[in-house]
């Protein structure tokens, strides 16, 4: 997995996640988010190159979602179909703000 960071104009941060987000790689994302969230006015996770996500990755998303609730929020963009499938199975699609790869707002 690789992470790329970009700071937006309104003080929000975009993180591009590439590769797999699973047991071996989730701790890295978690550490990165832990260092950004307190000072950020909103997190955007760009998932266009994310191959798949497992429950270890979901745990990080849930934790972040809980902590940024009133702090600009977290948004998932360019979510590919395979990841979307997992989010739907687990009901995460109901609690997260998601923009799928096709640009469709949900």
């Amino acid at each position, binding site marked *: 997995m690789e992470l790329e960071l970009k700071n937006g104009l309104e003080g929000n941060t975009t993180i591009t996640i590439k590769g797999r987000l699973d047991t071996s790689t989730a701790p890295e994302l978690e550490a990165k988010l832990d260092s950004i969230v307190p000072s950020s006015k909103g997190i955007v996770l760009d998932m266009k190159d994310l191959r798949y996500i497992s*429950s270890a990755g979901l745990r990080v998303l849930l934790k972040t979602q809980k902590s940024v609730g009133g702090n600009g929020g977290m948004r998932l963009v360019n979510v590919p179909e395979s990841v979307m499938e997992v989010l739907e*199975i687990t009901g995460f699609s109901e609690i997260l703000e998601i923009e799928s790869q096709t640009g469709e707002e949900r």
Partner: protein
Amino acid sequence: MTFIKLVAATLFPAFLTGIFTLLERKTRFSSWSYVAKQIAVGLAFGGFAVLSTEYGVQLNEGVILNVRDAGPLCAGLLFGAPAGLIAGTIGGLHRWLCVYWGGGTVTRVACSMATFLAGVFSGIMRHTLFDGKTPGIPSAFGIGTTMEVLHMLLVLATNLSDVSHAFLFVQLCSFPMVLCNGIALSLATLVHREPRRKEKTTTRSRNIRQDFGFWLFVCVVIAFFITGSFTQQIIYRITTDDAKLYRNVTLYLVAFMEILIYTALFILIYQMLKKKVTCNLERVNEGLRSITAGNLDTTIDVRTYREFSELSDDVNATVSTLKRYIKEAEERIDQELEFARQIQISALPRTTTSRKDFDMYASMHAAKEVGGDFYDFYLTDNYTLVFLIADVSGKGIPAAMFMMRAKTLLKDSMEGGRPIDEVFGRTNAKLCEGNDANMFITAWMGRLDLRTGRLEYVNAGHNPPLLRRRGGRFEYLRTKPNFILAGMEQSRYRTQTIQLQPGDALYLYTDGVTEAANGSEELFGEGRLERMLSQIGNDASAKAICSNVAEAVKAFAGDAPQSDDITMLCVKMNAIQDKDMTTTFPDDRSFTIVQDFLSNRLETADTPSRTMDRMLVVNDEIWSNIVHYSNASKASLRLGREGDVLYMHYSDDGEPYDPTQATAPDTTLPAQERQMGGLGIHMAKKLSSSMDYEYKDGLNQLKIGFALDIKPQ
């Protein structure tokens, strides 16, 4: 009667010397202090001088013959200057005083002086001429007679006013007294000498000093007889009575003076020769001996005379040229050894190989001299790892050449999948051919089947390796070794087999490790190696294990020079893996092993990417469940296909757990109330098309299916 008395007096000093010599050799007298000994000897010989004076041999006309002077002479010459001085003083004083109870007055001054001078003169001779050692018989005779000549000269010199009376004494006494004193001193010297040693220590040839002394002596004697016979002729040319007396006196005086002058000359020249030539030669020789003994840094620096200065410079120049040639030769040899070592090292494989299923590291710290250690490892096919470590007897170029031959033979013999005992047998037979130098090799070779973990090995007289089972400690893998390679042509080798499990590590080494010595000659030893290895964590890589040992050996040896190659090799088994199955110890690092296995297999099977992603997600969920909750020591994943369904078959020896019975979490709660528990199993169920569990043979068996063209449940 007169004659017997004289003989007895002449023998007496020898008798006295004999007594002291025996006391010195046989009794505790030898442990007396130097001063005490000198006083004892001085008193004894002083006593002899007194007796000599008292019991002299009466000749007619009041002339008394004696050997008084022999007392102080013996004491000074044979025992030391202080003893001579004491004896001379006693004898001289007594002679002076004896006038009061009947001693002769004519020779009073001359005799007292002569006795005292005998003690002094002999002491000086002992220290200058003979370096405190016992002189030879001729020298002793010469000193005795010279002293008496001086005595006679003094008699004449102190009585020049009444020369006719004095001359009577001299005429009667001179010959017997000179002779008796000479003989007395010679006999005493003979008694005092060390018993002649049977073997001659260094060389029989005379030294310069002796030779020179002898010829000088001959010259002095000849010169004396020439002038003697010349003056003898004058005696018969002058006849008047009065003139005859003065003529005789003069002749005696001349003769005595001649003897004294020649003796003085002899001593002077002898002494000069000794000081100026012999001593300097000794110094040059001392330097040369040191150089011959191998100390090329010795310089000779005798600067007393130009000749010795030049000799010193020439010797020094020769030595420095020699040193330069030796240094140049050493440098050339060092350079060639360095090339040899580089060739040797480049013949060994790269030190490290790391794969998902095994981890391998080898290192060789060569000693200064090129040595005969080597290792080798290679894959004969994708699933067979061959590794070996070996030590050729001896060091240097011969060992290195033998090592190259052995390495090539071993590798060549492996071709065609020959059993390893046969590989050793063949190599042994070939090495035995033409092994004129009688070299031999100890070697340990293993062939590991990475699909099953089965390790076949054969040991030809090599140190036992250490094996660590997963979670255990390193222990010596002691099995009866076979005979060394290249020792006997008919040697037979036997293969042994053990089963390795994922996580097991095997450490091989040569005796350079266990026989590394520290400054106090203590060896590193097998026990220390075992303890040291056991301190290394289970997670350490093969490279870390080798580096740790190498550092420990280095720290142990300190500044002590490394005498042998330190070679080691470590193989660590990460996973047992065949085409469709991987088995490993379920820990944090196993995730990548299993994920890589899975994605590689699915990619080669052209699995649709959607199915593949689902399988990877499910595997992550199931595998993390095994790693985190099962306490299993071994887990495996096998892939299979039945028609249009792909299966992932998990098997682990952990606590029984049936995921199909897990309750699904509530996936409709708002974010703040969501919990993660059970989510992974829920996902696995949803993403797969079937999930079957059974507990069988002590193993959790979970079979998860993915239909290739059907959407998930």
